[in-house]
């Protein structure tokens, strides 16, 4: 709230100057970006640390979430560095008053002429690529698992996923090739179409990531269980956050243009990071808790099935009670550790139990004809 409101006030002052004096001071743009990017970096860093601490206590956590943790760390690092790049750009810029400029400027940034700026830009770019790749791998593996469990095939979404990755890598290759020769050619005039391709691919990737989370959210909320509905809500939150943040990362805040297009998107870094962090963190913990409870129930049921007691209603009641006790204990510990509440009501546990018994019965029915075929 504080960062977003401060950005709005500074932006209003900048617009006033821009409208009435036909120019604006670049310091306003730098302050807006610094507030937005440093706050975004701090939020992602704090959430990354919380997620990492949770992984240390629960090493059985999902591997997909590890990729999201990595992407949060890289994104936090790159946003922080982008803020520094803007500061550095201001120091290097001779004119602090930005006025209409008829010539398009394509700066050639080399280590010899810009030194620190070249180094910062190169590290920021590599860090952004690492964040993109981690988030791409995480989302693709999450969606693959989702499709596998539901026996679904979504060809169009896979095409979008691989097309966005391919175009992203194609667009970034020329800049990466020139980094060892100490030249940052991303803004070079001859690479204009690569730059446009880069922006299109990042925006389409953001939309792809968002679609995946929305699809999963809709499927979770369609299950009439409170805990699944909550995971669905967090998934939707992650969708909004990830799409917004992806778009923001291509806004190139260090370019001092007139009118200052790009500044509007750059000023929402903190909001996007907050939404993405809270969505991922809550979703990871709730989904992992649900998986843990279902694993516990399945284990107890399988043990009872092996000794042939599952058929008795008394035994099912016993398992229900045991699982409820363990679940309540685990959920309370989780709430103390993370602050996230999980639905551990008697009704929710009973629903899990009924679902798993049904799944086991279906599996048994599928296995019986196979055994008969083998016997004949």
């Amino acid at each position, binding site marked *: *709230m*504080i*960062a*977003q*409101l401060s950005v*709005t006030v500074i*932006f209003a002052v900048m*617009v006033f100057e821009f*409208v009435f004096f036909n120019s604006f001071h670049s310091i306003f743009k730098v302050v807006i970006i610094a507030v937005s990017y440093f*706050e975004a970096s701090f*939020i992602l860093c*704090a959430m990354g640390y919380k997620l990492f601490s949770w992984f240390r206590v629960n090493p059985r956590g999902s591997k997909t979430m590890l990729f999201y943790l990595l992407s949060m760390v890289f994104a936090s690092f790159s946003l922080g560095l982008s803020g520094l790049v803007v500061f550095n750009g201001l120091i290097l810029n001779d004119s602090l008053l930005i006025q*209409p*400029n*008829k*010539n*398009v400027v394509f700066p050639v940034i080399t280590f010899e002429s810009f030194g620190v700026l070249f180094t910062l830009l190169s590290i920021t770019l590599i860090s952004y690529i690492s964040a993109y790749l981690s988030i791409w791998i995480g989302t693709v593996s999450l969606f693959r698992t989702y499709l596998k469990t539901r026996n679904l095939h979504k060809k169009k979404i896979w095409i979008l996923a691989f097309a966005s990755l391919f175009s992203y890598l194609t667009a970034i290759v020329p800049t990466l090739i020139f980094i060892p020769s100490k030249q940052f050619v991303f803004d070079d005039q001859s690479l*204009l179409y690569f*730059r*446009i391709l880069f*922006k299109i691919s990042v*925006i389409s990737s953001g939309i792809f990531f968002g679609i995946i989370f929305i699809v999963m959210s809709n499927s979770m909320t369609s299950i009439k269980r409170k805990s699944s509905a*909550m995971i669905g*809500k*967090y998934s*939707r*939150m992650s969708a*909004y956050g990830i*799409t*917004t943040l992806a*778009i*923001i990362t*291509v*806004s*190139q805040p260090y*370019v001092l*243009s*007139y*009118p*200052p*297009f*790009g*500044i*509007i*998107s750059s000023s*929402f870094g*903190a*909001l996007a*990071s*907050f*939404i993405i*962090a*809270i*969505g991922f963190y*809550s979703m990871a913990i709730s989904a992992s808790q649900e998986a843990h409870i279902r694993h516990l129930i399945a284990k107890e049921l399988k043990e009872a099935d092996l000794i042939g007691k599952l058929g008795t209603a008394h035994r099912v009641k016993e398992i229900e009670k045991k699982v409820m006790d363990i679940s309540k204990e685990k959920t309370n510990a989780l*709430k103390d550790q*993370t*602050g*996230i*509440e999980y639905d551990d009501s008697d009704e929710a546990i009973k629903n899990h139990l009924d679902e798993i018994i049904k799944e086991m019965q279906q599996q048994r029915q599928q296995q019986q004809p196979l055994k008969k075929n083998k016997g004949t």
Partner: protein
Amino acid sequence: MNSDMLKLANHNNKHVFDSMFLILICFIGLDVVVSTVFDLSDEKLNTIFGLVLFLSMACITFAVANGFVLPTLKTVYKKAIGQSALFAVLYKTC
């Protein structure tokens, strides 16, 4: 307010939040697209059209974010934000 009305209010809030966030994403995307046009031609946007476009985009985006998204964020996701001290602090600072 009885529980049914409260449920309906929450449901409406959620829809408002979803549609407003989509508008926000569209305008942020449009800003990035227009900023790319600068690479093609600076002159095209140094006009009254560019000025009006920039101002209207800024007004809509900030109004949507500060008027709808931020206030409804806490009511729609109060379970996630309200129960963790860290989330509550981050919400205030973001």
